[in-house]
């Protein structure tokens, strides 16, 4: 789903696939008549076949920014339609000692995109003699994604890290590069389930008479674990395992949690 300030038609992952690889049903026209015997097929004319360069490999990613930390989490299931390709394919990639990117969507584009980002980071390091800051990586990713405006990377990205003042920073993207800084964001197949929960627990949205307690690291980690356990219950593409990357000024720590494998 491309982020839109306008109305663009809804396309969920599954529907995209059926629209994009709309294999126009083979004109076999094999009909099983009353007798149960297959009847002859007849030629109806040229049939159009669609090739889709994309597929949806499922997966959910989530990021939360705190006062002096960021958490980026993803499940580790790699699926395609109703099959599971791998139970141990995390979607978080470490870019710099203070930035992690999480990518959900089409796995092929996720891999290529992360390779491109890593290469650009190195080029920047060599020409400017410093590591790219989280905000700079976000701006760069936006132009990389927009460069493929007419054949997009089918990836939903979230960058999590620390900004120059040491505060947690999350940047969420749409497939063609529109981005903004958030306090928390979920993306991927179960995003529509997770985002309202985060709005409630972290954003205290539309709640009256509640004290806005700032989020501590431990509470945030516990919340992320709970939220993924819930997502696994109700989304077929999410599950198997959870990988959490915690970014603080000390560096990046990783934590794992097994999830339901069904």
């Amino acid at each position: 789903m491309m982020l839109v300030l306008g109305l663009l038609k809804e396309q969920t992952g599954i529907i995209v696939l059926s629209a994009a690889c709309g294999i126009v049903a083979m004109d076999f026209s094999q009909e099983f008549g009353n007798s149960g015997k297959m009847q002859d097929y007849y030629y109806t004319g040229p049939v159009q076949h669609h090739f889709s360069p994309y597929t949806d490999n499922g997966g959910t990613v989530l990021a939360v920014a705190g006062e002096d930390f960021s958490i980026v989490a993803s499940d580790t299931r790699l699926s395609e339609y109703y099959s599971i390709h791998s139970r141990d394919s995390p979607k978080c990639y470490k870019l710099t000692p203070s930035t992690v990117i999480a990518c959900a969507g089409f796995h092929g584009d996720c891999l290529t995109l992360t390779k491109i980002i890593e290469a650009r980071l190195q080029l920047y390091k060599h020409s400017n003699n410093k590591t790219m800051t989280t905000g700079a990586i976000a701006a760069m990713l936006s132009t990389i994604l927009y460069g493929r405006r007419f054949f997009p990377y089918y990836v939903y990205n979230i960058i999590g890290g620390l900004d120059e003042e040491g505060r947690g920073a999350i940047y969420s993207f749409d497939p063609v590069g529109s981005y903004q800084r958030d306090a928390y964001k979920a993306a991927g197949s179960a995003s529509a389930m997770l985002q309202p929960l985060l709005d409630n627990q972290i954003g205290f949205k539309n709640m009256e008479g509640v004290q806005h307690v700032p989020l501590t690291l431990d509470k945030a980690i516990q919340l992320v674990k709970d939220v993924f356990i819930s997502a696994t219950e109700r989304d077929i593409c999410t599950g198997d395992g959870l990988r959490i990357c915690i970014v603080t000024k000390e560096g990046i720590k990783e934590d794992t949690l097994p999830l339901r494998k069904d």
Partner: protein
Amino acid sequence: MALASVLRSDYADFSFDNHKPFGFGLGLGKSDVRASLGEELSFAVQTSLNSSDGEGIERKIEFLHGTTTLAFKFQHGVIVAVDSRATAGSYIASQTVKKVIEINPYLLGTMAGGAADCSFWERLLARQCRIYELRNKERISVAAASKLLANMVYQYKGMGLSMGTMVCGWDKRGPGLYYVDSEGNRVCGDLFAVGSGSMYAYGVVDTGLRKEEGLTVEEACELGRRAIYQATYRDAYSGGQVNLYHVHSEGWTRVSQEDVLVLHQQYKPQPQA
């Protein structure tokens, strides 16, 4: 092509599409991978067989974009008011989108349509405006800035860009307001509202705008705020917060940012005794 030249950076060329800004699929021969206008992820590869039908669907013009943005000129400058909702289908992707882009301290651009399209091209416009300033040692006029933007996107006409923006500023001719969109329109005017909630906003502004006597700054701000609020009330695709800017001779000022539910309480008619 503007897009190609920007991306032809000093770095090694990692963008595969650099030399093919027309969006031809890589190695797919005659096929054309295109995002149809108004449908993000339905990328149907068009073979030459289907091109006639496909183009019909793709060229269908989407006028309604789920947003409400508004700008009008008045005696003391230009008021720019926008909502802050971004939708992906019926899912609200964000309630805190910045739909006003600060091109430079005296020029503003609004966003409607595709979020990435608007922010990318307006960011490119900011760069062009700065280059103009450096070359000519004076600020760019609103007419020239809007023309630069219109010409940039005109090269991509028909390829599926979706952008409806208002360029607002103050130059030596006074307040300036232009509407520019991805179809190639560029019109100067005193009042524009863009988006699915634009009709509701027009109704409110047309009622409140008094040409003869003029409005004070506070009255104009309140009018803009009310117009966006009413649009968010009735249009499902608009909502979030109302961001209000005022452009005057010294540049622009961010007037306010108010959540619509706060405004709802404020505007609620008091119960009759």
